[in-house]
């Protein structure tokens, strides 16, 4: 892993990235020669019909999935050839994840879940850091609750707090509102908007035009390729564009 002192302009950069699943005639090019920059301090939504490769693109960008060709850069760090230990360290310090299915650890309370990344990184997190992170997502009073005692929206906010407690460079979110009702979804999106406004880089995959409309920019994917972009569009405009690509 190489790190240079200069800060790159883009939070994450993909250069000619391809990812193929399967072999021979059954091979699927989930991501097909994608070159893309996710800007620092901006919120980018990735949209596309199901099977367009948007989740695989996110996994590749986050170093969870290896790429077959091309390069993935997190800031100035090349993830392409990084080993397991390097990627683990990145997940602890520079990358945060939020997923559709929350993925909290059921055995741990909300505050234990939030403290987990810090503890895994070997530090003994102060209660105040954990509490203030939970407070930032509006759940300071739920610190001692276990995931099953929380609503879906609350669980997702705990997941966001867990992702943010390490102050990551980039927050990757895969359908963060996919399992939420509209009220809970609005709360979560509002939270993410506030984070982006405060300078947090966010890459989000979604199929919901309403969610995508909260982002600064929308990238459209089809058959593993980037086919379109929109900036500062409303939900209607995003939906129309998506519908056009789904035809």
């Amino acid at each position, binding site marked *: 892993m190489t790190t240079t002192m200069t800060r790159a302009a883009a939070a994450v950069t993909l250069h000619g990235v391809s990812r193929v699943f399967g072999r021979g005639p059954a091979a699927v090019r989930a991501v097909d020669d994608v070159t893309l920059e996710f800007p620092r301090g901006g919120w980018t939504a990735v949209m596309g019909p199901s099977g367009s490769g948007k989740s695989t693109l996110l996994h590749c960008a986050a170093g969870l999935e290896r790429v077959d060709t091309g390069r993935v850069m997190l800031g100035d760090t090349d993830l392409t050839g990084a080993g397991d230990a390097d990627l683990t360290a990145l997940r602890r*310090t520079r990358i945060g994840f939020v997923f559709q299915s929350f993925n909290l650890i059921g055995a741990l309370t909300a505050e234990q879940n939030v403290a987990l990344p810090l503890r895994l990184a070997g530090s003994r997190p102060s209660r105040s850091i954990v509490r203030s992170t939970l407070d930032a997502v509006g759940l300071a009073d739920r610190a001692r609750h276990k995931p*099953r005692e929380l609503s879906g929206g609350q669980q997702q906010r705990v997941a966001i707090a867990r992702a943010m407690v390490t102050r990551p460079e980039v927050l990757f979110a895969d359908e963060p509102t996919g399992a939420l009702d509209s009220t809970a979804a609005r709360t979560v999106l509002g939270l993410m908007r506030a984070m982006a406004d405060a300078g947090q880089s966010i890459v989000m995959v979604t199929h919901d035009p309403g969610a995508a409309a909260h982002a600064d920019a929308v990238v459209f994917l089809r058959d593993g390729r980037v086919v379109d972009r929109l900036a500062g569009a409303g939900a209607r405009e995003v939906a129309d564009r998506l519908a056009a690509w789904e035809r």
Partner: protein
Amino acid sequence: MLGMSRAGLAERWTLFVGALLSVTLGVALVQSSLLLLITAATLDPPAGLSAAARLQFADGTSAAVAMLGVVLGGAVFLAGFIISSTFAFTVDQRRRDLALLRLVGGSRGQVRRLLLGEALLLGLAGAGLGVPAGLGVMAVQAWLMRRFEFVPEGFAGQWRMWILGVSVGTGVVLAVAGVLVAARRAARVRPLEALRESGPAARVMTAGRWIAGLLFFGGALALVIVAPHGGPAGGQAMAMNVAMPAAVAVVAFAPLLVPLLARLMPFGGGVPSSLARASLRDARRRSASVAAPLIVLVALVVGNTGAGASFTASGIDELARSTHADLVIEATGPVGPAIAKVPGVARASTELSLPAELTTGSGDERETETVTALVIDPTAYAAVHGTAVSLQGRAVAAGPGGEVPKRGEVRVRLPESDLGSLPVVASVPETMTGGASLLLPPGLVPAGQLDDAAARSFVSLAPGADPAAVRDGLSRIGKVSSLDEWLRADAADRSSTNDRIMLIVLGLGGLYALLGVVNAVVIGAATRRREFAEARVTGLTRGQVVRAALLEAYAVTGAALLLGGLAAAAAFIAVLSTTSAVTGAATLDLPWPLIGAVAAVGLTVTGLTSLITSWSATRRPPVTLLAVRE
């Protein structure tokens, strides 16, 4: 990490109860066997015994020690096997949790440490419960040994303070060692697996499984090949040890074999059966893990009792073929001359049995053991047993029981006299039934020392003699039976001894393995609530889901019974070749009622356990299960 281990244990307690129980009973079994072994090995003869009785006591004690050695070996093997397979299974069932940990920044080392931490806690807790449980197990084992007269009345295992350290060590070492391989494997889980709904398409056969499988297969094969060349004692010991490595080899290949065989079981039609068939195809590692303890149980119980019964039958058969006499008289003291005087007796071989302390070798290789010596009339002995043996003066012969070199010098000490160094000049073939290790010529032992010796005389009638009259004449000397009666009684005695030995060696171990079977079914079902709920929202009734689970359990059990039988069959090959090599007749005598019982118990236990677990896993309405997600 220890804190996380604690939280993990508290949350997934259903998954861990089985693991804890396996450590507890494993520690209890090992502790009890070890304490009994030490007690038997240090047992002093009661005061006031005659010298002969003291030597006999020593002989009985060394037999009990040998038996307890086998029990201890079996306990350690079973504990190691059941604990490691249970732990590996619980780890396997938590791949998604572990992937999640990796996703939020957990390193491979941390995943490993988490699992080892859990194993440490479970090992300590299991030892804490296992020490008192071991006292109960010891009471049962000692009672069995007293009841079957392998140890004197009043024998009871003695507590040793150091056993605390051994038991805690056993619990921790077995638990940690048991999880070591599984932890390494789990540490390689990819973070992305946390995001997948269903379990990963994990590799079915790992390199470790191939290596372990081939290694243990090689071990079993080597024992099968060498057994017929090991003589009666060595051959029997080797054949009795085939089932263990053969079972481990079969278990290693179980992910390939179990689903294959399970799908061959007749299922009947309908949705539940096609669902069960699909589950078998899909969850190959789970099927293998559920089958593993049952394979070992069947292999050990069927393989060893089958081998034991066959060797006993072979010995009985050999004895009948090689004994040429009409009547057998059991008496005390040198009754030979008295028998010879009875009218109608053509020939009698009177064999007086004495305990003897035998020393062979010298220097570092010097060994002393208590054996049975037989004072014989060489000519008569040869005629009755069909094997020539010529002895004169101080020369002795190696008997059918083995343990004495065929040539050379041995030192022999009898209860009341030291015979000094004696040349071994002849030997008779070792037999399956064993018997005396040393044959002594008449006149070597001072006459007075034979007065209390047990005497067995084989009598041949003169042509035309009236058997009833001869019998009548002999009955004043001792207990008379016809050769057939005596052989039948001897056979019954040998079979019953064999059964008792098998019960002591396999009884508690078998129950422990059965607990492993229950464990495996419970763990296998513990993580299937969601799968069951999905089947129900698809339109299956609760009854259909339970029936599918039951059919699956039945198919896996059937496959496990067959595979356990396969491992046992390896032992039977060794039995056939060994009995053929030793007695000239290949013998296999299978305890069919026991085999039937094992199959019935296996099917009943897995069936009931899977019925209860799948019924309770489907208790809540499916929608609540599918809606609530961690």
